């Protein structure tokens, strides 16, 4: 913790030192609103819930989260600060986790700033706030999953554009791994166990499960173990570059 905190603070502060944070938050809120009201037809549904809001989270994260994660390591490598960072007396895992948590906290803030829609729906009717809270938790966990994938990919390149594009593709595969597009690829040759395993990686399935208001331990464990896995990959990738 004593190692992680300064890293977290610097990284978190860096978002707000540049216009990045503000641009991101504005676009995040704007697209969230646009999807909810125009595509999700929030009003026309005539139901006092936020399902038309949460449904689009995976798809928005797909593009917005890699935009956050792409700079995490690629930028350090490009600007040479990587050398500074890795020669400071901090264990590598603390640096990796500290940076990840800063990015996660930042997306958490963006997500929390969507609170007016919660106020709106409570003003218009009496929604099940337990379901809404569960959906927020699910959305936050899902954002963490996307971020961990993006951070890991960012560590493997010093080019932010590559980090972005590859992250979007990998995140996309994880999002829809329960869908025929991905499963058909495996169906031809893979055993059923593997197919089931692949389909169980689907963010959509796990997020949908949490969004019903039932916080199943399995869904929580899924997201946390996915985050842990990719952060471990992040540590390994950074360490591999040391060996050269």
């Amino acid at each position, binding site marked *: 913790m004593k*190692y992680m905190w300064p890293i977290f603070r*610097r990284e978190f502060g860096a978002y707000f*030192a540049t216009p990045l944070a503000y641009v991101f938050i504005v676009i995040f809120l704007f697209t969230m609103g646009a999807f909810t009201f125009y595509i999700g037809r929030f009003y026309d549904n005539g139901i006092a819930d936020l399902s038309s809001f949460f449904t689009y989270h995976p798809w928005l994260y797909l593009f917005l989260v890699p935009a956050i994660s792409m700079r995490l390591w690629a930028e350090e490598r490009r*600007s*040479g600060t990587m*050398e*500074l960072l*890795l*020669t*400071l007396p901090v264990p590598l895992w603390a640096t990796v986790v500290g940076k990840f948590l800063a990015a996660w906290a930042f997306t958490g803030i963006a997500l929390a700033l969507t609170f007016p829609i919660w106020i709106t729906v409570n003003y218009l009717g009496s929604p099940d706030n337990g379901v809404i809270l569960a959906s927020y938790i699910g959305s936050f966990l899902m954002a963490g999953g996307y971020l961990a994938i993006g951070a890991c990919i960012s560590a493997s390149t010093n080019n932010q554009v590559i980090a972005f594009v590859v992250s979007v593709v990998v995140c996309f595969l994880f999002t829809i791994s329960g869908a025929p597009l991905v499963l058909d690829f495996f169906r031809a040759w893979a055993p059923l166990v593997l197919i089931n395993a692949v389909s169980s990686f689907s963010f959509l399935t796990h997020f949908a499960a949490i969004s019903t208001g039932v916080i199943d331990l399995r869904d929580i464990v899924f997201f946390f173990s996915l985050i842990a896995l990719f952060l471990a990959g992040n540590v390994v990738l950074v360490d591999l570059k040391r060996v050269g």
Partner: protein
Amino acid sequence: MIEIEGLTKRFGPVTAVAGINLKVGKGEVLGFLGPNGAGKSTTMKMVTGFLAPTSGRARICSHDIENDTLAAQSVIGYLPEGAPAYGDMTPRQFLQFIARVRGFSGNDAKTRVQDAVEKTELDPVLDQPIDTLSKGFKRRVGLAQAILHDPAVLIMDEPTDGLDPNQKHAVRSLIRAMAPQKAIIVSTHLLEEVEAICTRAVIIDRGRVVADGTPAQLLARSRHHNAVTLTIPVAQAGAAKAKLKALGAVASVEQSLQSGDTAQLTAFPKSGALLIEEISKLAVSEKWDVKELYAEAGRLDEVFRAITTDDTTRARESRA
């Protein structure tokens, strides 16, 4: 305080550092010289733990950099090549971050930052984003970061690169002032810097140490070591040349420069011989109109060129 044993780094087929052995003790300022790509930076990156060596080891204050990384890194101050820093931070924020990472907090952190700022004279730019600073200030931010925790070992990759003469002088004074308490490694291209601040100079070429000694010892390897140059009228030059050649201790005489009606003669000594006294006596007895007469300590660039290879040859060989 710094012990390097058989340190080697290979990148694929290219050997960047090929078994370097070095020991640097307290009070030593080691000038690390070598052509570009000789392996200076790579060596420093391994010693500070940024790169893992292919083989060999480095110990800092008896902590192995690979096995006891944090303990070793906490006693090192390191200025990487180009003095990288987070450009969107101000020097104050950046140094506070470094202080926190290095485990200082509260007033302790404040004094540390204050101290480093004073030593590197960063005061006037303390609250400007680092991205907007001049090269000189950026370099000093990097330097401040490296000395903030008063490390026992200081490793600096080209600390004066890109600085103007005044800034160079300031940085060198700072290094000299810290030298007695620390073991310092400074890499540089500037040979004058070695003479100005280093107690020892190590030249590396193609990843190997090719010379190791005090700057004076290296200078002694120069052809110009103890050579005597005198400037006399052209009319006397021919006769003088013959007289100089006749001296027992003189190996050769060169007429190096002629401008207007004066000529410059340089007498090179046979190894170990001192010429200046003999030649000045000769000048008096022969009644030459000497305009200038001086002995040289030697030329480091000459030594450097003689024992290192140029980059094309090196690139070709390292891939062969």
